[in-house]
């Protein structure tokens, strides 16, 4: 397996590295993200627009490059996030399952190591997450939500920029298989 330092946008599976993480990181990072997501908006209400559990889902899914692992990671994180809210459990679970599957599937096909790709992918997955959540919440739970493209893109950009920094930090915990 050859690791190239040259950023590439499309490559074969053999050229991509698959990473794994230690158990403390696998469990601790999502828990920390969920904790911060529940704790920080109380002091900084605007931070409710940042979806740390989503960023962690995208990161683990892309790094592991295993669709099953990705979708299960997304499902678990999403369900726990649902449990902390007041709405029926499953809204975030479904949305993050789809995102986890998509991120890991793309991670198999694309190089997601460079910041530009991460920025765009995170923005895309934020929007995908929003669309799935919106659809399920309105279609099944009959929640009265309004979709605002401008706001969604702005929030997605904010999440994507934070994601680039967060992913760079989480890269330090990666272990090559």
């Amino acid at each position, binding site marked *: 397996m050859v690791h190239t330092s040259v950023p590439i946008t499309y490559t074969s599976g053999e050229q991509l590295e698959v990473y794994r993480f230690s158990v403390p990181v696998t469990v601790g990072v999502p828990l920390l993200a*969920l*904790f911060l997501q*529940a*704790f920080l908006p109380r002091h900084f209400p605007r931070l409710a627009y940042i979806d740390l559990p989503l960023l962690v889902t995208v990161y683990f899914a892309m790094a592991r490059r295993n669709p099953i692992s990705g979708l299960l990671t997304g499902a678990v994180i999403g369900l726990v996030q649902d449990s*902390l809210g*007041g709405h029926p459990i499953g809204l975030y679970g479904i949305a993050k399952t789809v995102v986890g599957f998509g991120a890991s599937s793309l991670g198999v096909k694309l190089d997601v190591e460079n910041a530009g790709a991460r920025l765009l992918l995170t923005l895309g997955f934020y929007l995908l997450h929003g669309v799935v959540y919106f659809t399920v919440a309105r279609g*099944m739970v009959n929640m*009265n939500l309004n979709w605002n493209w401008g706001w969604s893109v702005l929030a997605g950009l904010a999440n994507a920029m934070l994601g680039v920094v967060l992913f760079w930090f989480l890269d330090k915990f990666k272990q090559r298989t």
Partner: protein
Amino acid sequence: MESVLGRYRNLIILVGVLFLQVLGLAVQVKRSADAESTRLIRIWAVSTITPLERVLVWGQKGTGNLWHNYFYLRGVRAENRELKEQIERMRLEQARLSEDAAQARRLQALLAFKEQFVLKTVAAQVIGSSGSDSSRILYIDKGENDGLARDMAVVTADGIVGKVLQVFPSVSQVLLINDQSSGVGAILEKSRLQGVLKGTANGEVVLERLMSDEQVEAGEAILTSGGDQIFPKGLPVGTVAHVGGGKELFLNVRVRPATNLSKLEEVLVVTQKQERQVTAQDTVRMRAADILAQRLPSVPEKPAEPNATSGSPAGPVNGPTRDVSGTAKPQSKPSIVRSPQSGFATKAQNPSTPKPDDGVPLTGPAVESSVPAGSQGSGITDTSAARHEASAPSVVSKPVAEAKPVKPQTKAPVPPKPPAQSNPQPQASEDGPH
């Protein structure tokens, strides 16, 4: 067949996991009307996350207290002075409100209304939130072990906050009034129009079910109506922020909550309410002035000593009083005045406190004052008020309009009127919750 399963294994698992979740969601939606059972996953998640939050809040509060209580004391004197002034203003306000409340009780007794009282509250600290902008949920550090239960009202001194949604052993989930699944019975203070307070998807609060032909003005206060059986009637909800045309013949009334829902630190959970019918007994309690008047005739039983004016139950008469110029006045002129209603001695309102609208600065020079109209016979002659007057010797009380100074030992006692026949003006409620 095996090759197909192997080829689409990821997709099949994705569909399977999604199907399970959709199924679970459908079951919850179907049962949402009657099911209040707490999901196990919810208990696990809350049990995992909230201890961390509790520790962090504890550390944060400890650090904050250390800073505020020991290092950062600048401006405390000024703040103390302001608070004292505020207390003075609120005393007057309280006297007026007590009168209004007592009047309301009398009317309720006449109409055989039932009243709800907040009997018991539990103070709780906010330790976390749902972390989602679509679910306005708070976590507080009190739970089942502290006597909390579902559907208890959560309030602050400013107004209502929400209701208890889920209860765990040591933590509870509070649904804020700006969540879209929340609903509170509300009434407009002036126009008495009733509506339902709901949250919106973007965290705003609106008052629904108001017909578009009704007149609602921005700035009007909104109170709880008590119709939801969760919040006691009359708690502040907020004010009307904007009134616009809504859909289906209803007004679109946006509400500015009385409580800053995004900056909550401590809240009160109403754990016990009492509903009772107001009785006439509530409205004819003996006024402090009458008690005082009853005591006065008994004084002459013992020969008065030279400075026996100090034997009067009213404390303020003991010390020398001063007029505006600071000249000492003899003790034989106590600052007890005759109540225009009962004809008996009662104390004058502390003159150092200005009337609410007279613009007299609270820290200004001592002035003579009369009892504000709103507090006449309002029962503010309780012992605490008397003590308060005693502690303010720099002023002299001027009797109210028809009142004359009384010399308790020389003047023939006038028999007190029976309490029920005395002036039915209400007094400050000292024991009953409002």
